[in-house]
């Protein structure tokens, strides 16, 4: 194995541990910290099923953002949808042909959509970047890291597009490398500059994810304002620390 490949094998393992470990850690934190009071933003659903629908609608259509700002919604929604399509396309490089998802991933439609989604992704990112530069309010709240995050993902998209449309990489070897990571049977990585840039940026993104605002992905599901059932009069809501206070003075008895 080449030294370069060994370095990337190690980097991938480290990045995956930090990404999944970091997110799991945050999710456990969000689960552990209680929500002492009912703070659903109303009108809110009266049932758990209703809450599932509310969150589904938020996650899939960005409902609140749509109400807030049509421009941000267009750019943001197109970007995230492209991300999803690109993700489906990339599954081809990660799963073996005997895996049950293969026939689905290998569909022409999944592959083509994934391929051209790269352009939509760049469109969305340029729009979001433009808002940060040209809208005085958004510019005011942006830090360097906010711009760099968009640039980072933009460069991942552009380097990916280049491998589809300008200069193909050795995709067979790349897939061998990736599957090797999963089956602990490490293989060489194609020595291809664009690919290495693409992968390095992806590794960077994985490392940043659990310590940055990218936590909005898991965090969205934990906002008490959106995930609480609107039934405070019907069902008593009490946190463990609220119960401790009660137990101390006994005034709720």
């Amino acid at each position, binding site marked *: 194995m080449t030294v370069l490949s060994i370095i990337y094998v190690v980097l991938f393992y480290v990045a995956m541990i930090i990404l999944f470990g970091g997110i799991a850690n*945050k999710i456990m*934190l*969000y689960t552990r*910290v*209680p*929500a*002492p*009071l*009912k*703070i*659903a*933003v*109303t*009108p809110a*659903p*009266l049932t758990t099923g209703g809450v599932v629908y509310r969150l589904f609608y*938020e996650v899939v259509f*960005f409902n*609140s*953002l749509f*109400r*807030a*700002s049509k421009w*941000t919604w267009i750019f*943001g929604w197109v970007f995230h949808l492209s991300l999803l399509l690109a993700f489906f396309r990339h599954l081809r490089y990660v799963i073996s042909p005997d895996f049950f998802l293969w026939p689905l991933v290998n569909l022409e439609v999944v592959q083509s959509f994934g391929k051209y989604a790269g352009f939509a992704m760049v469109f969305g990112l340029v729009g*979001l970047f433009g*808002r940060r530069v040209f809208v*005085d*309010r*958004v510019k*005011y*709240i*942006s*830090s*360097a*890291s*906010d711009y760099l995050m968009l640039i980072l993902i933009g460069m991942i998209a552009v380097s990916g597009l280049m491998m589809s449309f300008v200069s193909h990489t050795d995709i067979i070897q790349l897939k061998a490398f990736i599957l090797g990571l999963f089956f602990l049977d490490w293989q060489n990585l194609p020595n291809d500059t664009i690919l290495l840039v693409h992968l390095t940026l992806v590794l960077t993104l994985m490392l940043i994810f659990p*310590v*940055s*605002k990218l*936590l*909005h992905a898991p*965090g*969205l599901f934990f*906002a*008490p*304002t*959106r995930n609480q059932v*609107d039934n*405070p*009069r019907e069902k*008593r*809501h*009490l*946190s463990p*620390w*609220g119960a401790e*206070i009660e137990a101390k003075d006994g*005034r*709720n008895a």
Partner: protein
Amino acid sequence: MADYEIPETHEFPVIPSIMEGAMAHSSPFVAGKEFQDDMGFPSPEEPGQLIDGWKEKFLELLQEKLGKYRSLQVFMDTCVKCGACTDKCHYFIGTADPKNMPVARQDLIRKIYRRYFTFAGKLFGKLGMPNFVGAAELTEEAVKEMYSYYHQCSECRRCAVFCPFGIDTAEVTMAARDILAMIGMGQKYSNQIIPKVHKIGNNLGLPEPALRDTLEGLEEEIEDDIGVKVRFPLDEKGADILLVTPSADFFAEPHVDGLMGYAKVFHAAGVSWTISSKASEAANFGLFIGNYESMRQISLRIRDAAKELGVKRIIFGECGHAWRVAYNHLNTLAGPWDFLDQNYPIPQHILEFTKDCLDRGILNIDKSENDHMTLTFHDSCNIARASRIGDTPGSQFTTPRQVIQAVCNNYYDMSAETIHDQTFCCGGGGGLLTDDLMELRIKGALPRMEALKNVIADNGVTHMAAICAICKSQFTKVLPYYGMTMDQIVSVHQLVSSAIILDGQGEEAEESNGAE
């Protein structure tokens, strides 16, 4: 009227260009030692200073809050600075100060969270460039800035409606205010009022004899007016219903007309009810200062009063944040309510009671009594975005409108983006209804005043009805600044009161009509 620059109203909403520092001078009076002491909060040697070791204390308290409130922990992490909220706050629209954009307001404390509690902030902090990742050092200036801008938020939650992640600035403001109070910077207005609730029974400091006197005066007034004896019982043991209402209902216009409306509805419905001198206040300023224990203590007065008087039901009068606390938190803080009649909602809103009476046809209504008015309705922020008034989601919008339309012939809504869950705060909520914040209150009222002016111009509306004591007081004060008159704000139950015809209301009523 003091001299302030009144923002211009427009036919269509205008989002201002940002003006940095436009409201940096706005800050409510800091609570002096006596008021901090009353609350059990520490006080520095000089008012306006911070206690010794404030920095460690601040970070310790922030850490504690992060461990106790999931909302705060999640909201600190999830903001992506997308800008969706930036043009949604009435204080931003009215002042153009960028720190009044909800995200910027949250960032005052999020920067500290990032600097001291996240890997990225600690790393870049050590490198001397915390602002690279949206972090900042905790300095005395930062604390003073928080005191200023966390008291330019009325905790109305309009931003939370639009945030893609449901981030609620009110939660952040409450946490920040509580931390500030604990390092010596409590707000005078709220800290002065809360002890009165405990010592005397209400925010006004109206003691039992004065309250009894006031209520007797109201009985006489109604009897003189319509010739019917409508009772205002106080501390009557064995009554079925305990009415908990904001103390402004006992004396201020137009609040008191609303109180007379509740009394007439109770009278017509033939139920027995009482006010408690001990719990003669619906307001709960514990919400405003973000203090769970304070909010609980204020709520427990209602539990104690209900037990002492042996009532079966609790009904709340027209008050916005009080209904938020009652609807969402009364069960949590002062429950369980197993000793009350479970056939009725606990607690119930006066509009739920009145609506039910109207639906059952037991009220005799003459809508023409309100024909001299054309109404619109101001959805109070806390009711719109933090409660229901009825069984279905959105009943907090429909129930008040149905009641108004059942007692008035002329009604128009204000424009769609300013009502229901998109309603604008009156500009005086969240513990800001104090004279030392008058400039902020006038400017913050801009979006509501604009929508009101437009519905007046388009539909000939003459009056705006509200169901919140703070809204009513705030509008009474700011309407004149926008070229309208203070009596254009009315209580919903004032409209009910005018239209309801009680049994035995005969000749005397005609006489009083003739006198008008």
